[in-house]
């Protein structure tokens, strides 16, 4: 009886704490939006973050996109040729990437590459009292540190998703057309005919923007909210990667169910 009460209490405490944190995060999000003016008026602050989050993530995005596309080419050909539809390989590769794999895989990569770096940077700034020092100099850390990193992520990620998908299509073409010998004309023309700009590409980009907001918010919030110790920062980084991954997968399901209901 005693054990059960303790367990219930613990579960209750966890739930209450979780709700508190979601509340904090929502308030924090409002503050970030409220203090976003400087990110636009002093655009160099945001451009710097686009460089750190976006440009420095290019390598992993390009290489992963290429390999995902090549694997799609191999697996797609293997399945399609059984039904004599190998020419549709281009359609399969492009739709898989534009609708699902591009936003989801690039989002997961972005969260682990750039999101974790943002959390670590803000967390360490908090640990070494840099945020407090800024606040004491009458400069809002949310306006000066958090908002530019948030917008840097929100702007970079959709662009990285587009690059990821383009590299994936290139990888699929490389395997399907160059190595396996699928007809090049059919590969491209079927893709062009089957992929709709609004239904497939635009919906994919909307997903990437939603994921970008979620991942960037999680990254800056975890950094800003971390316990200012070495252990606290490391936990915050882990939480960023785990929460971002879960958020991307959950949001993907919700968005897909609204966007692609046939």
């Amino acid at each position, binding site marked *: 009886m005693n054990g059960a009460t303790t367990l219930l209490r613990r579960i209750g405490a966890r739930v209450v704490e979780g709700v508190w944190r979601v509340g904090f995060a929502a308030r924090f999000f409002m503050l970030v939006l409220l203090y976003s003016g400087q990110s636009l008026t002093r655009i160099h602050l945001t451009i710097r973050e686009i460089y750190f989050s976006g440009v420095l993530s290019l390598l992993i995005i390009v290489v992963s996109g290429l390999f995902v596309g090549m694997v799609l080419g191999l697996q797609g050909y293997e399945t399609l040729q059984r039904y004599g539809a190998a020419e549709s390989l281009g359609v399969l590769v492009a739709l898989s990437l534009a609708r699902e794999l591009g936003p989801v895989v690039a989002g997961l990569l972005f969260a682990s590459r750039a999101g974790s770096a943002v959390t670590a940077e803000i967390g360490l*700034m908090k640990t070494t*009292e840099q945020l407090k*020092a800024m606040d*004491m*100099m*009458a400069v809002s850390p949310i306006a000066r540190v958090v908002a530019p990193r948030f917008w840097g992520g929100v702007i970079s990620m959709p662009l990285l998703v587009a690059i990821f998908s383009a590299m994936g299509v290139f990888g699929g073409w490389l395997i399907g057309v160059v190595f396996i010998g699928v007809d090049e004309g059919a590969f491209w023309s079927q893709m062009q005919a089957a992929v709709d700009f609004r239904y497939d590409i635009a919906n994919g980009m909307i997903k990437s923007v939603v994921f970008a907001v979620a991942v960037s918010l999680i990254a800056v919030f975890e950094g800003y909210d971390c316990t200012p110790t070495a252990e606290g920062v490391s936990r915050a980084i882990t939480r960023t990667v785990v929460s971002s991954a879960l958020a991307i997968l959950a949001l993907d399901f919700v968005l897909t169910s609204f966007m692609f209901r046939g």
Partner: protein
Amino acid sequence: MGADVDNAFVSLEGVRFSYGDREILKGVDLSVRRGQVVAIMGGSGCGKTTLLRLIGGQLRASSGRIEVAGHDLSRLGRKGLYALRRRMGMLFQFGALFTDMSVFDNVAFPLREHTDLPAETIRDLVLMKLNAVGLRGAERLQPAELSGGMARRVALARAVALDPMLIMYDEPFAGLDPISLGVIGQLIRRLNDALGASSIMVTHDVHESLEIVDYIYFVADGRIVAQGTPDEIRASKDPFVHQFVYAEADGPVPFHYPAAPMGEHLLGRSTA
């Protein structure tokens, strides 16, 4: 004198502060006049840094009144507080330099954020501030390339970049070698006098402080337990001050953390 409230630039009256159920400050009265360098001393964890955070407006007192430059801090909103902080400088314990900026950019930071001065003027001002702390030659270095004492001097240059009226120091001497310690001590006094500012220094370095400050407050258990000029402190018969100034291990501040008697503890009759 330090307790001259009417002429005070910073004054605290009956200030109480708690973290949750734990009461850190139990009614503190303190005042700092214009031009004074005041030290707040006490053992670790006695609430000294909390006092500094209250004066800087980073924390709000649970009760009592804190006035800085004639403003009641409890009545100031965020904008008012930020306007006041532009006239305050604070030196954090380990400098808190921005690690992604060079020494020059660190000192230029408050100038760039709060003024529209042209780049050449900012450059001149930064070099003057760095020259005052003896580090003009280090302008291009990154914070990671500085020693602890140098980092604190850069942070000091940054804290006085906007010529503040009030400069606050959180443990300015912690972890410094004797030479850097003397240098920082002299700088604190010189900068205060040159700017006509007031300075509040939280420290437990008695001997260095007695050399440079005008007035000293001793804090223990959340209260001011002794105060006076350096000469009065040196001559004090107060057991607490005596223990502190002469670094005695036991006295009013006990050596032992509260515990059950040793015999009981060893026999396992007490878990305390």
